[in-house]
């Protein structure tokens, strides 16, 4: 029996970064907000104290912070002609679970996308002609521009205390920053983190090659910081346990260290953890959400009625919940119709491992944080002429020293035995003098007609609901892009004086067992045309106007950066639209 709870103004599905931002903004507007989170509550001191936060086996190898596939998973295949099978161990990406979501275990790379990224199809068509794009590439403009989002990027960076060097303040290029970035209204709130030796060498070599290297913008604190909400963060200690881990000393920007302390003080906010939303409920018209249904760990089913529903779960669960709730027309790749599930993307990552003379180089790879490093942006987006190369897209690349953790960090030259005395000798010899960037080439993945999410015809979850099925493969465009970028990246290590370089190109087919990033994108994308997008430019559902869907599921394609800055900026943008427009006149904000 479903038990009905007292109605709320707002129900939020998932209390990660965007759930927390929306909850704060809407509670701040005076609304009565309930957030429902599938996973457990997490606090710094009780859940990842310094005494065991740095446990590589527990968190990196055994995936303690992530969703357990036993609870729910999805099925995977490369091609539409194949039969998808359920993923039983996470590999290519790590679905978050629990309060704080991916914000707990991210590296805290805090980027803005390029202005042209938001008008991608228009821009590329204008510059190269429509014929330059592959026929089956389905990239779109976002319906929102960089200028629209700038104030919201700014809010997130000041919330997080982002450490970085501006490259463009109000149109003025600033030496030492990224000259390709869109104009920002002011500098970062904190200076960049100090750079380790390897990054310094990389920057020098990059400069010598004519590039403009800059520090990676980081949500790890270069100094103690108090954000505009009054919440404080401590300085980063360069321990090198960021991604996959919770930060033990309040140094990494997470919902816990930036928003939740003030959100929890609001009497009009409440949250339920360990409760999985199974459905967004609609009224008889199908045009209005009436709330959500969720199940607690006791197996009890509850209905939480609400006037406004914010869907802010992880990308693929956003898409699955829309499909299971009958909201929006499911995407059909054969007929090229429908919207829910289309333009699904991931990332095109590769790396270069370089071996230096141990007698001359000691890089101390353990002096690390999730995003200290020097990057270049010459090969990102459309920052270079793609004409001669026959592909579109790109990515940033950098010597980012995320960790020297003992289990993972054992780079040895090709030809070394995989075990035994020779292997040990090689590990010992190269540990200090090899560079394997935590972020190497961070390439874009553009969208295609045959890369999408739908409901699996065979496999079901414990409630009998179909699992989400992902159909995804690399296309030639991305593989060409990656080969070009990886070669460019390797040239810089060559210039640094590496005596041996191993290029780890990204190759097809898409492998769901090899970690890339957790940046699954798309499937419930924003746009200007209800025929090709699930959401309008304010992340509002075209079909159910009292439903807003946040997160990277709104990206029409994935640019060559980490997504969190844009995910958060979009959440602030949507919250602003709700506060200043929707609440005054609830209904569809865009007449399309």
């Amino acid at each position: 029996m479903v038990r009905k709870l007292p109605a709320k103004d707002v129900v939020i599905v998932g209390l990660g970064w965007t759930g927390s931002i929306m909850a704060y903004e809407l509670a701040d507007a005076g609304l009565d907000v309930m957030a429902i989170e599938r996973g457990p509550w997490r606090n710094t001191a009780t859940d990842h104290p310094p005494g065991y936060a740095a446990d590589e086996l527990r968190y990196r190898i055994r995936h303690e912070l992530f969703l357990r596939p036993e609870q729910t998973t999805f099925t995977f295949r490369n091609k539409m002609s194949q039969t998808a099978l359920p993923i039983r161990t996470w590999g290519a990406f790590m679905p978050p679970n629990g309060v704080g979501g991916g914000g707990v275990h991210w590296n805290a790379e805090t980027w803005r996308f390029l202005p042209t990224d938001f008008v991608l199809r228009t821009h590329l068509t204008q510059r190269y002609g429509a014929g330059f794009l592959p026929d089956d590439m389905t990239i779109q403009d976002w319906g929102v521009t960089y200028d629209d989002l700038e104030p919201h990027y700014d809010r997130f960076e000041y919330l997080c205390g982002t450490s970085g060097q501006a490259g463009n303040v109000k149109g003025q290029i600033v030496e030492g920053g990224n000259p390709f970035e869109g104009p920002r209204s002011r500098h970062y709130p904190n200076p960049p983190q100090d750079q380790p030796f390897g990054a310094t060498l990389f920057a020098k070599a990059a400069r010598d090659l004519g590039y403009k290297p800059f520090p990676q913008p980081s949500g790890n604190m270069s100094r103690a910081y108090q954000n505009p909400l009054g919440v404080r963060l401590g300085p980063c200690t360069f321990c090198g346990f960021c991604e996959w881990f919770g930060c033990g000393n309040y140094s990494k920007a997470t919902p816990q260290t930036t928003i939740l302390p003030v959100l929890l003080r609001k009497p009009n906010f409440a949250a339920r953890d360990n409760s999985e939303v199974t459905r967004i409920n609609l009224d008889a018209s199908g045009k209005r959400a009436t709330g959500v249904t969720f199940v607690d760990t006791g197996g009890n089913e509850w209905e939480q009625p609400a006037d406004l529903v914010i869907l802010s779960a992880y990308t693929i669960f956003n898409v699955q919940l829309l499909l299971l709730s009958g909201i929006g027309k499911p995407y059909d790749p054969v007929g090229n119709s429908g919207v829910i599930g289309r333009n699904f993307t991931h990332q095109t990552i590769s790396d270069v491992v370089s071996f230096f003379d141990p007698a001359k180089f000691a890089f101390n790879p353990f002096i690390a944080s999730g995003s200290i490093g020097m990057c270049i942006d010459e090969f990102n987006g459309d920052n270079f002429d793609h004409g001669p190369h026959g592909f579109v897209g790109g990515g940033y690349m950098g010597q980012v020293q995320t960790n020297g953790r003992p289990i993972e960090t054992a780079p040895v030259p090709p030809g070394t035995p995989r075990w035994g005395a020779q292997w040990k000798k090689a590990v010992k010899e190269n540990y200090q003098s090899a560079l394997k960037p935590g972020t190497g080439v961070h390439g874009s993945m553009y969208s295609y007609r045959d890369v999408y999410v739908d409901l699996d015809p065979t496999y079901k979850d414990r409630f009998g609901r179909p699992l989400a099925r992902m159909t995804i493969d690399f296309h030639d465009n991305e593989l060409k892009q990656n080969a070009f970028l990886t070669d460019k990246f390797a040239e810089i290590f060559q210039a640094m004086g590496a005596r041996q370089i191993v290029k780890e190109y990204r190759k097809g087919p898409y492998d769901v067992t090899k970690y890339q990033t957790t940046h699954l994108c798309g499937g419930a994308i924003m746009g200007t045309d209800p025929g090709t997008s699930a959401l309008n430019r304010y992340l509002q559902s075209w079909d159910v106007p009292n439903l807003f869907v946040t997160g990277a599921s709104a990206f029409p394609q994935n640019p060559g950066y980490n997504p969190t800055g844009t995910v958060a900026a979009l959440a602030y943008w949507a919250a602003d639209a709700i506060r200043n427009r929707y609440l005054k006149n609830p209904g569809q904000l865009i007449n399309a």
Partner: protein
Amino acid sequence: MRKGPTIAVVLIALGASTGPGASADLQDFAAVERGRYLANAADCGSCHTIPGSEHPFSGGRPIETPFGVLAAPNITPDRETGIGSWTNNEFDAAVRRGISRNGARLYPAMPFPYYTRMSREDVADIRAYLNTIAPVHNAVQVNRLPFPFNLRAAMIVWDRLYFTPGEFHDDVSKSKEWNRGAYLAQGPAHCGACHTPKTVLGGDKPSEALRGYMLQGWTAPDITSGQGPLRNWSVDDIAEYLKAGHNKNAAAAGLMGEVVDLSTSKMTDQDTRAIATYLKGVTGMAPGSSATADKADKDVTAAGGAIFQDLCSACHQQDGKGVANMFPNLSEAATTSTQDPATVLRVILQGAQSVATDREPTGPAMPAFGWQLDDAQLAAVASYVRGRFGKNAPAVSADQVRKARAALTARTD
């Protein structure tokens, strides 16, 4: 938020309670407001409300004393189980003289030796405020002390020894601010109830005011200036600590966290500053100066330093200075150097949740290390911290850690 029907109940109950002596005017807004402010300043809710309860002031919270456990009574306006049928005179006698309505003596867990410094009007205002809260029917068995402490008649002798009745009078040689602070600290805020050393019978030692005491498994540290632990704190530092629960030196947790949460954070900035001004005038001796501080041997210090580097320095920094308003400065936090290491050991063993306030909402927490460090390791790091950062603080032995661990295991809080 109180709902309509409840308000009706309140009014009926109050109407019924208005006896000959109960003169509070329910519409005296100014008195009710003053009373609410003073009830916070006097921290009535800390004892008379079970933490997290939806029924403020309905009593029942166990109060641990060196002589056994008492439970705070119900002080809602309920006529049968609360104080709804008490006259203002009866209320005043209890609060300021420690004499209950039936003539029995109150135990000094009720800090009437401090509240006696309040004026009659202030206490009447507290009563006026308490009259406006929801009556709750909750009979509390107050006296849970063992024999012979359960005999209240003994309190007649105690009162003669330790209780000096009388309102606070301004010292005309001092500033207005000092006098306000002295009134608050000696009266409603009853700082000395925890921070002043006690005799074996639990009476204050007035000559050692605010030089620290042990209670409920915590060391309430010496909070004197002069040569005392707060010698490097400015008036603003103390005021900020009281208002925000944090300053550049320390963070309030445990019982003091509760005091900040329920009481001092709700005071005006002028009042926390007034208390700070008064406290800065209370001079004490150098910590541990009366005892030759035992130093840990070299190997223990080396081990403690290694543990500190590994587990503590990420937040407290390698120089122990911490991060302002987040992680305490171990050299300036009063708890580092207490003669009795109870708080230091408790915080390392169990961790500590600092208070979150409107002024400082972060509320960072120290993780527990009791699961990870054995008695010798914990003694080593505690000795290292006290030796390197503390002021003449004696080293801690493994045996002290063993006992502290056992005592904490036996505690329920």
